[in-house]
């Protein structure tokens, strides 16, 4: 079986509805109690182009996509030509539309791999079944469901549940599903080798990485969100905005990123918790504020949702090329914490931790995510438990009291409590500006000590797999998922997962390196930015680097190919 999974991929133009049908399929498989991983690729335009929605299904948690697919369902001719070579042997193409002329290479590929092509005019089928045009997508679903050899009633139940509250003709909807399911073009030879695992019928949680960040923020006491639209960060705002009536939080779409960050600074100073999220260019604009948060010791949490490329880059494709700017952006020396999430579980947990660290250590925290994590739909049995909100508030004589830990008392501005000034000027213990050499030195050393204290609190990177694995991948973010998926297909590999990127801990890494293990740096960027940080910290140089920077995430196959090359 291909990478212990079954893969169904939809391809079509943006705006053709592949997200809807992909989501319906994901949900229906979820109803069966299976684990899914759904991933979208799309160009930066509203309608047209080629986009895809791929669902990988398995009986265990699955966090990365395979490169190949069992079933390819295409809604546009261009999508068919784009994705045809992704098909596995005995793969199936369901093309929604008229027969298409394949070129010679495609013909050869189809023959060699015994690929079967079904042309299905789904609109026609829908209309004939008494439905309307828009129901074409459930026709396709029905057809696929049949190939997957699943009970059509479960599909019907799920689809109807999803459409609840919308004005639809239930009977017509059902009829269309059935029409697809029992379409005469179906033949037994289709997907003979496809077999979904046995199922628990226990629903899983389905959510995107961004939704998990939003939930983590809420769980951690966040009461406001400030942002400016920028994909792939914006869907955090969407989730928070659409649930605000329930959570009672304040959602503000600011006039630009600079304002969003500065407003957050003001609000955090006052003692609430605000989430801010942005992507590369927007983050650059926030770096002056970051530096200000650093010296004024104001907590600040910014989600940096990475996409590939400098400038506008390749919107909106994935990458992890903002590790350098997250760790070094903003002028001057100042303490900060950089955290990298990799999936919904870590998103949920680390977002809460981020706020605790920001509050307690009074510094800016950057949460790195990636388009791949932000927008992929993960399934999991349950989220990790909610963390305790730890604010580290205390009163004291001076707001910037010099302490051994570097952490000074900080109290919420409150009527009756001693007022203080927070300032971006270098300052004395009471916050007044100073240019006296010793005072400047002492206060900046105090701040620097917070990094040491924090370094003691955070854990070493976790090794997933055995110390004795044949090869150890070292990375952060979504690279973990491809490696662990590869591992679970039986590869004797391990993954050293950097969740905390700053402060950076290298003890475990060096111990593994000393053992003479095969150490492979894996990153979704061009220069190996995490590897550079590691080398800067401990001189360790990676001999092997697996870097991918074409906008695509690591597929499980990339790992296997690399190991077998």
């Amino acid at each position, binding site marked *: 079986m291909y990478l212990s999974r079954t893969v169904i991929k939809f391809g079509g133009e943006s705006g053709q509805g592949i997200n809807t049908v992909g989501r319906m399929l994901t949900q229906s498989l979820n109803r069966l109690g299976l684990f899914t991983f759904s991933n979208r690729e799309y160009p930066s335009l509203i309608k047209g182009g080629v986009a895809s929605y791929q669902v990988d299904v398995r009986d265990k948690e699955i966090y990365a996509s395979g490169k190949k697919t069992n079933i390819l369902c295409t809604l546009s001719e261009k999508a068919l030509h784009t994705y045809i070579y992704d098909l596995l042997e005995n793969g199936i193409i369901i093309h929604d539309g008229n027969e298409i002329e394949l070129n010679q290479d495609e013909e050869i590929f189809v023959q060699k791999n015994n690929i079967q092509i079904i042309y299905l005019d789904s609109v026609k089928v829908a209309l004939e079944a008494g439905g309307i045009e828009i129901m074409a997508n459930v026709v396709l679903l029905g057809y696929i469901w049949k190939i997957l050899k699943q009970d059509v009633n479960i599909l019907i139940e799920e689809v109807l549940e999803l459409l609840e509250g919308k004005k639809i003709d239930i009977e017509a909807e059902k009829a269309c599903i059935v029409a697809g399911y029992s379409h005469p073009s179906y033949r037994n030879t289709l997907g003979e080798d496809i077999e979904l695992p046995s199922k628990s019928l226990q629903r899983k949680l389905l959510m995107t990485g961004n939704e998990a960040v939003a939930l983590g923020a809420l769980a951690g006491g966040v009461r406001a969100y400030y942002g400016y639209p920028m994909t792939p960060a914006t869907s955090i705002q969407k989730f928070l905005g659409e649930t605000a009536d329930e959570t009672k939080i304040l959602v503000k779409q600011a006039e630009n990123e600079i304002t969003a960050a500065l407003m957050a600074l003001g609000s955090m100073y006052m003692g609430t918790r605000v989430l801010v999220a942005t992507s590369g260019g927007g983050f650059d604009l926030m770096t002056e504020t970051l530096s200000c948060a650093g010296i004024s010791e104001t907590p600040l949490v910014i989600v940096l949702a990475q996409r590939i490329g400098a400038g506008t880059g390749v919107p909106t494709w994935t990458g992890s090329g903002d590790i350098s700017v997250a760790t070094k952006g903003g002028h001057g020396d100042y303490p900060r914490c950089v955290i990298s999430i990799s999936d919904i579980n870590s998103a949920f947990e680390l977002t809460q931790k981020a706020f605790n660290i920001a509050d307690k250590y009074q510094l800016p925290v950057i949460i790195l995510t990636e388009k791949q994590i932000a927008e992929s739909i993960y399934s999991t049995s349950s989220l990790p438990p909610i963390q305790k*909100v730890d604010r580290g508030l205390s009163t004291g004589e001076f707001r910037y009291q010099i302490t051994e830990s570097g952490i000074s008392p900080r109290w919420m501005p409150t009527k009756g409590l001693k*007022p203080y000034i927070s300032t*971006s000027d270098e300052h004395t213990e009471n916050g007044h500006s100073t240019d006296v050499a010793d005072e400047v030195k002492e206060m900046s050393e105090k701040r620097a000590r917070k990094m040491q204290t924090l370094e003691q609190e955070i854990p070493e990177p976790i090794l997933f797999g055995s110390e004795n694995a044949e090869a150890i991948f070292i990375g952060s973010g979504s690279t973990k998922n491809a490696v662990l998926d590869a591992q679970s297909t039986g590869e004797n590999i391990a993954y050293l997962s950097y969740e905390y990127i700053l402060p950076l801990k290298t003890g475990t890494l060096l111990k593994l390196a000393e053992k003479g293990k095969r150490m492979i740096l894996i990153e979704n960027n061009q220069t190996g930015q995490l590897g550079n940080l590691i080398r800067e910290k401990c001189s360790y140089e990676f001999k092997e680097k697996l870097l991918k920077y074409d906008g695509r995430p690591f597929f499980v196959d990339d790992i296997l190919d690399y190991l077998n090359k």
Partner: protein
Amino acid sequence: MALELKDYNSTTLPTWCPGCGNFAIHTALKKALIELNIEPSEALISFDIGCNGNGADTVGTYAFKGLHGRSIAVASGVHLANRKFTVIADIGDGGCFHEGLDHLVNAIKSNYDITILIHNNQNFALTTGQATVTTPKGKKMYAQPHGSPERNLDVDSFILNLHPTFFAKAYSGDPLQLTEIIKKGIQHKGCSVINISQSCPTYNREMTPQWFKENIIKLDTLPEYSSNSMEAAKELLETANKTKKIYTGIIFQDTTIPTFYDNLHSRKGIISELAEEVKEYNIKELLKYTNS
């Protein structure tokens, strides 16, 4: 115990040039707070970077001294987190009309309940005297031996045209009126913008106290003027332009427009402040909204 000026002072003394208008603005602000019975621990002043912000150390209230041009954005965030606080944004004409112009526009539009004090000394003073949009045309300035090649921005008309809910003009040399205006600004629920002509004897020598005396007309002396009319306000500014006079007083006020916060559906009926609400939150009920 009655509040006194010293309660609003820190132990640090101001460092402005002798005769600088910033002294009077600070004193007026403190007096306004006293007279409104706002304790130092109930007020937050967001300071900008500039001569204006060089007074940050001298105040006894809560304070935040952030970045050049950004004090309004910080103040906006402060206000949203805890509306119980009296929030003042202090800023210079350079920070307000150059680096941070967008924050001014949007704070007015969003109508946050803050009071913006523009220390308008008609130059970038702390960087030793460059031209701003309010520097008189033709005046030789730093790096501009022939004066600025730019048009001025008519900042009053610019502000008024955004339909601020409170807009006043004042002069640092008239501390009593200034105090009164700041009080009104603080009392106004919404974004109060006060454009203060601030004397700067170092880089704006031409505008001496005498000059101001000759060119200022106080609205108190025009009893027929009503600050409730946008039309009247526009006319007033036009007259001011034509006659080259400065009218001080409340130019315009509109109490019918809700603040941003009050417009928020999600916060309707909630009496606690965001700053008071931080605690663990059970997200179970939200799980049904994911993957939607």
